[in-house]
């Protein structure tokens, strides 16, 4: 059965993804900020059919703890068949513009922490010559926009990092999946006004599950975001800079 390391397991999108693996009888190592929430997810996955679920409490901005985290996961699971990286925060753009500490903190949570983890994990996967590394990025990383470019920068950088990693690990038979969701109705967006482009986290989770199983490279979810972003990427900068997006 699959052994899965889930980083940022308290993310709703992550939960909706790993529930499907639980029904398949997978074994999990869950990492998150809050022990209470991890315990609730552990119970949920066990009822759904997970074989075993371990939890590990960590603030993922503590880059110095990443090696220890991965070592513990390896010890517990024995082998890691798949990793899902899902933690993140939606940056308050206005606040970030006024305060460089906020900007750097956000880049740390949304980009650097992933780089640190993936650097350690990549070597394990490269050596074992198989497995799936799935990381949630965002359509927001496809083009910088005035209203959220700090978050967008982190996502865009993450996507490029993953592109390179995919290119490197393809030789070792390892799949690197970049997930680019559009707007999803989760705690991260709870305070925002909803519009018809918002999608159900259940649908997103199922799509990620399917993409991990079928070893896809890039997943826009829902699919129509691929077309939206194609158009957005192709607007000439001369015009784009004048739009309020």
């Amino acid at each position, binding site marked *: 059965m699959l052994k899965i390391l889930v980083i940022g397991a308290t993310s709703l999108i992550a939960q909706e993804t790993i529930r499907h693996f639980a029904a398949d009888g997978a074994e999990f190592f869950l990492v998150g900020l809050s022990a*209470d929430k991890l315990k*609730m997810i552990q*119970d949920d996955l066990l009822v*759904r059919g997970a074989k075993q679920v371990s939890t590990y409490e960590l603030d993922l901005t503590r880059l110095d703890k990443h090696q220890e985290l991965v070592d513990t996961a390896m010890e517990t699971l024995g082998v890691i068949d798949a990793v899902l990286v899902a933690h993140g925060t939606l940056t308050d753009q206005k606040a970030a513009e006024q305060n460089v500490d906020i900007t750097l903190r956000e880049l740390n949570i949304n980009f650097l922490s992933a780089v640190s983890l993936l650097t350690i994990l990549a070597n394990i996967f490269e050596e074992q010559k198989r497995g799936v590394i799935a990381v949630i990025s965002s359509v927001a990383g496809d083009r910088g926009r005035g209203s959220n470019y700090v978050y967008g920068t982190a996502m865009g950088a993450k996507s490029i990092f993953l592109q390179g990693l995919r290119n490197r690990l393809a030789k070792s038979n390892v799949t690197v999946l970049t997930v680019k969701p559009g707007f999803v*109705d989760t705690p991260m967006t709870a305070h925002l006004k909803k519009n018809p482009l*918002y999608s*159900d986290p259940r649908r997103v989770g199922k799509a990620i599950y399917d993409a991990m199983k079928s070893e896809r490279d890039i997943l826009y979810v829902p699919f129509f975001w691929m077309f939206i972003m194609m158009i957005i990427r192709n607007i000439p900068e001369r015009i784009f800079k004048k739009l309020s997006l």
Partner: protein
Amino acid sequence: MKRYESWTRQPKVNHQTIVPLHWRDELPDLSQFDKLVLPFGLGRSYGDSCLNEHGILLDVTGLNQFIAFDEETGILRCEGGVSIEEILKMIVPRGWFVPVTAGTKYVSVGGAIANDVHGKNHHTAGTFGCHIPQFELWRSDRGRVICSPTENKELYEATIGGLGLTGVILWADIQLKRIPTPFIDMECIKFRTIDEFFDLSEDSHERYHYTVSWVDCLAQEPQLGRGLFTRGNFYDPPLGAKKEPRALPMIPMPIDLPSYAVNPLTVKLFNELYYNKQLRKKIGGVIHYNPFFYPLDAINDWYKVYGKAGFLQYQFVIPYKETREPIKEIFRRIAKSGQGSPLVVFKTFGDIKSPGMLSFPRPGVTLALDFAFRGEKTLKLLDELDRIVFENGGALYPAKDARMSGASFRASYPRWEEFADYMDPKFSSSFWRRVTSS
């Protein structure tokens, strides 16, 4: 994007805000809101009981975690926003089923408790609320409270069938039932009159856990109340037989109707064909639980069938043991009016009492049907039916009501004042304001 409206999309109301709940240990501070709140589940109620005009809806479907499942006792503990569909997906392969289910599986556990839903096995199992040993309620004035028949008994009884007004059901224990296979061994029997229906009901109650009927609402005397009686039990294969029988794809409900089928002429034609589709008096076979319990789930956007004017759903229960005249009179009125869609559910309720103070089911016979909305004409007919229902000790189902008068509600739910004492002071609904004000 999720719609916060009732299943009929009527009445149209605005809410001030929607507040999603995601973690049962991270709940908002209700005192920060200046408006009253109401939990909202999967919106499968038809009327205004799941709406709170100008107020706040707490979207509770984010509370969708399982907590524990004891495979020895069959007690499942899960959050209030978990749907019956999710539960079935998990438990059926392990040989369990929900104790009671409505005609759709897209109902949340909280919604099933708040309306104390009933199913085809009311005569053998009672309501959903009869199978909930305990739950945890979250209230604005008392925080988190465990309720059971022994702990906070009154609040337990008020919450079952409590229309979401006593607080949010954070999680509940559900006593599941064991099943031998996911198939139903069923029979479908034609009845020519309503008296034949009652005979079949009597005859079936001991031996069949599930019974339900379809009635041709446009048939007049001497065929008044003719229809098809469906009964079944979970299929228990005889020793040595295959566990996976060859299942019939048969569907015991008239769901295959096209959208033009709901004007009086076509309904008549459709009913004629549907009734006569079955040539023999009795047919039977083994069928998967999905088409047996949830034929309507195969159609999306049911309301579209009725076009722009929309539809009303009407469901009442009326005693029949002393006299069958009132129910016959109701069928006569419907047939004479030429209104009513082919979508009809007819069934006798048993006498298992629910703990719920405001529970709808009571001994009698219940009829649920859709009416395409034709303005005054429809309302007038329903007023006539109301009169017969209430004069004969019957009641309407709040989950499917947007129009009964306050006086009728209060007369048919005599414990409403006692119930009001257990309401959360921060909670209210459009339904509740309507039936307590007029």
